[in-house]
């Protein structure tokens, strides 16, 4: 069950309020099974090893807290332990075989204890089979639902309907006779029962989403929009068609070499049909060899592809019936598509003419099929080249633009605890860090100015009775934050040191949304967040608080030690290496029970564009392949033209033409083809690239330069391809060319 949050900007989330699962189970009979699962990412696990040392591990995939009926809905079997009872008691956990071996060196771990997040000592009551690669539920540790309060008492409460986290998921296994629509009908009743008097009654709305749609549904933050898959499939299809087209081109261009053979065969009694099938048989052998080669190459390139696109594919036709079927269909289609036309042409040669080695004359002027095919290939290549240029430019823009704050030489350290002891520790940490010579500045905060994770809240301004209908990005900071990140104040001042929320700083978007005309207007006015009222003391210039895919949010910053999750450290470049070592030592002193890690902010920010980088790599690969195939086609065409024009070149040379003017004969023709291809491909590419760029709120403009670059690249490639062949033709001895048989 997902939640739609309606407001100024409606968004959809996979998450739902914590008490929802129990409500659905108790109040209605739709589902055979109902379950709630809560994920906590990046948890630390400590294991006591035989010699009483403590081994600490950071599990990035985190833990999932749930009940045993989760496993009735999802098929994650146990290799040891009883699933019906495993998570019933508090302080129990399941781990996978892989983790068992990692922590204890064997899979016999039932009864052993692990410490999770320094919060819970859990006994292992079952071992899960290793999680398959293609699931979204990547957690390898499952903890009893009874421990939810240890990780979040808000989520564990029975009446936490007012908000929700996207990490809390509710799943229903509907009875076979129940349709999704009948379930959705009762959702308003839930709102009535549980949200009476709650301000979010008209804001939240629940929806059912089938499990199989999760991966692709972009609205709900699914991993990938299906449109990219379709795009990739189409491009793949185009490439195969292009290769077939090339084969046809080259085969018919080579026809002259075989005309004598065919003439002889016909004289010796061969019939047209027999010759046709001979050609088909030859094509089949070539295609099958090509397919074997392709499977081999695919296997070899797998490690490279998997790293590049961050997937885990395997290629094994014998294990995968779909693949086998696909390959067979491809072979048959390619053979008939590519082989029939040349087969018909070649088998149709008249013996008398064929024996003389002459071909039926083909026009080289105008637009015979050959040229149309080359134009088509070059159109595809051009579109991919334009795509590559645009995406690369956008990536360059996204990653290297000034974001409105400093991001270089800044390291983010975790601050693992923020209870009363945690507050003392973090102050200790920061004062010690500032003593390190390589440390220029340090600041306690929840997140850096730009981060994936954010707290979203609503405000009341000044004398408002109700909250404003829009939400903002809430950022806990300290008094060093503005100077460390070089954020610019345009009104008021920065914050004075404080442990609790007693001052607010806002950004320009915030001012605009309130409808104020100047930043000065808000100084010393009060705003109220989550019931905490305090004056606004400063306004900062806008900075990009999210990736370029998203708009700049209204931002409110305030001091709040209990919201601190990171310590930002700005280091001097010279001496940074020893500086980092000192920092690590200090951190481990302050937090001996936790695992140290650090992230450079600029590296972290690049992760916003992981998916875009993958798309770029994909398109570059496709462009490379298309160009290669296009060049082959072009080479075929120029070979054909040279063969047809040998006599004409000889005549022109006799009449006084120099090598240059012969070269220009070819150059002119191919430039024309490239230009026509460009005229056809440019508008289409422009349209597609605009669609791609629409995903970015901050984007480059597709200028004329892009198209000029694309056409220059294509002309260069075409020139190199035909250059050698046409040069050879232009320098040929005219006498030899004119020799009559």
């Amino acid at each position, binding site marked *: 069950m997902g939640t739609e949050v309606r407001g100024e900007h409606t968004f959809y989330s996979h998450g739902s309020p914590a008490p929802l699962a129990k409500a659905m189970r108790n109040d209605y009979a739709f589902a055979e099974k109902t379950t709630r699962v809560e994920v906590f990412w990046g948890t630390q696990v400590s294991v006591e090893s035989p010699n009483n040392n403590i081994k600490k591990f950071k599990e990035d995939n985190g833990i999932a807290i749930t009940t045993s009926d989760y496993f009735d809905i999802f098929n994650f079997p146990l290799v040891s332990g009883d699933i019906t009872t495993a998570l019933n008691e508090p302080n129990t956990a399941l781990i996978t075989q892989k983790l068992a071996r990692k922590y204890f060196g064997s899979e016999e771990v039932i009864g052993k204890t692990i410490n999770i997040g320094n919060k819970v000592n859990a006994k292992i009551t079952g071992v899960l089979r290793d999680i398959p690669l293609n699931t979204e539920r990547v957690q390898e540790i499952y903890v009893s639902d009874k421990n939810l309060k240890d990780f979040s008492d808000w989520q564990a409460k029975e009446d936490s309907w007012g908000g929700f986290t996207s990490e809390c998921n509710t799943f229903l296994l509907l009875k076979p006779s129940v349709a999704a629509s009948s379930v959705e009908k009762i959702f308003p009743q839930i709102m009535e029962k549980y949200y009476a008097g709650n301000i979010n009654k008209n804001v939240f709305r629940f929806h059912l989403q089938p499990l199989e749609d999760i991966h692709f549904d972009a609205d709900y933050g699914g991993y990938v929009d299906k449109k990219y898959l379709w795009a990739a499939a189409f491009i793949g299809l185009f490439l195969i068609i292009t290769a077939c087209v090339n084969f046809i081109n080259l085969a018919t261009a080579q026809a002259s070499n075989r005309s004598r053979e065919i003439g002889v065969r016909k004289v010796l009694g061969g019939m047209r049909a027999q010759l046709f099938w001979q050609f088909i048989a030859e094509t089949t052998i070539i295609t099958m060899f090509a397919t074997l080669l392709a499977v081999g190459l695919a296997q070899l390139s797998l490690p490279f592809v998997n790293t590049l696109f961050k997937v885990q594919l395997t290629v094994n036709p014998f294990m995968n019936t779909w693949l086998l079927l696909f390959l067979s269909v491809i072979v048959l289609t390619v053979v008939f598509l590519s082989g029939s036309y040349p087969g018909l042409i070649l088998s149709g040669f008249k013996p008398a003419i064929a024996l003389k080695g002459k071909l039926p*004359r083909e*026009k*080289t*002027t105008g637009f015979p099929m050959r040229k149309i095919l080359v134009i088509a290939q070059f159109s595809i290549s051009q579109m991919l080249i334009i795509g590559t240029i645009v995406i690369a430019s956008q990536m360059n823009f996204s990653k290297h633009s000034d974001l409105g704050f400093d991001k270089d030489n800044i390291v983010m350290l975790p601050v693992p605890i923020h209870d009363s002891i945690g507050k003392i520790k973090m102050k200790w940490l920061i004062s010690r860090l500032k003593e390190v010579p390589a440390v220029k500045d340090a600041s306690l905060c929840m997140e850096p100015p730009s981060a994936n994770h954010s707290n979203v809240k609503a405000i009341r301004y000044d004398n408002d009775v109700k909250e404003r209908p829009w939400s903002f990005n809430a950022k806990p900071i300290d008094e060093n934050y503005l100077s460390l990140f070089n954020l610019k104040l345009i009104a008021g001042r920065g914050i004075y040191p404080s442990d609790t929320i007693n001052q607010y700083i806002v950004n320009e978007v915030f001012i605009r949304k309130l409808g104020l005309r100047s930043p000065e207007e808000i100084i010393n006015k009060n705003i109220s967040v989550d019931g905490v009222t305090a004056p606004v003391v400063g306004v900062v210039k806008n900075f990009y608080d999210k990736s370029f895919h998203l708009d700049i949010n209204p931002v409110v910053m305030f001091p709040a030690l209990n919201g601190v999750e990171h310590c930002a450290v700005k280091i001097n470049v010279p001496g940074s290496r020893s500086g980092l070592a000192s920092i690590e030592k200090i951190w481990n002193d302050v937090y001996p029970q936790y695992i140290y890690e650090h992230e450079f902010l600029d590296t972290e920010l690049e992760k916003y564009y992981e998916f875009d980088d993958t798309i770029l790599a994909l398109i570059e690969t496709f462009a490379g392949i298309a160009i290669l195939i296009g060049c082959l086609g072009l080479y075929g065409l120029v070979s054909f033209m040279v063969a047809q024009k040998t*006599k*004409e070149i*000889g*005549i*022109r040379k*006799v*009449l*006084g*033409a*120099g090598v240059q*003017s012969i070269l220009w004969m070819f150059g002119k023709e191919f430039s024309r083809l490239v230009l026509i291809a460009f005229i056809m491909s440019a508008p289409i590419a422009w349209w597609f690239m605009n669609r791609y760029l629409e995903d970015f709120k901050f984007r480059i403009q597709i200028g004329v330069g892009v198209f000029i670059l694309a056409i220059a690249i294509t002309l260069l490639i075409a020139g190199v391809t035909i250059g050698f062949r046409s040069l050879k033709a232009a320098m040929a*001895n*005219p*006498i030899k060319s*004119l020799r*009559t048989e």
Partner: protein
Amino acid sequence: MENKTNRTFILKDVNLDVKEGEFISIMGPSGSGKSTLLNLIGMLDEFNEGAYMFNGQPVHELKEKQRTNLYKQHIGFIFQAYHLIDELTVYENIETPLLYQDIKPSERKARVADMLDRFQIVGKKDLFPEQLSGGQQQLVGIARALVARPKLLLADEPTGNLNSKQGEEIMSLFKKLNQEEGITIIQVTHSEKNADYGSRIIHLLDGRIEKKD
């Protein structure tokens, strides 16, 4: 001609003097080197030993570009198989040599019109070679050879693909060009009849000059 293992002589001890205004026929059986000699005279081919003076200039010492310029301006070539460009019209075929000589469009137009008129093929100027008879195609070939106003005309079996009547017409035309306009003509031919149109006959056999008349 030298190939990798031994030297083969296509022409040996050929000494030939041709004065301006002469009409010479070269005769001999197949393989005697007639066409080779003609190609050498026309600067379309190169030789390894010997010297060639054209109008006082040592052709064998000239660079490729200079040679091309020389034969472009002074020599016209006529082939047995006509060798017209099939994709161009009669007009365009005749015009082609002028394109390689940097002659202005208006001048080109005038010269081509003049040729069409002289050979009475004005009505055919927009036709393609495949629409013409053999004799007409050869006429076009001759017109093309003459349009650049060469001093020397080389003809390699010009009537070889024509019937006897067409052949006679072509040969009379040659005689007229030679006598009335003083164009030097060297032709290669099989036919004694054709050879008689000229003033001198050179006989070649196995690359050597057998006898000169």
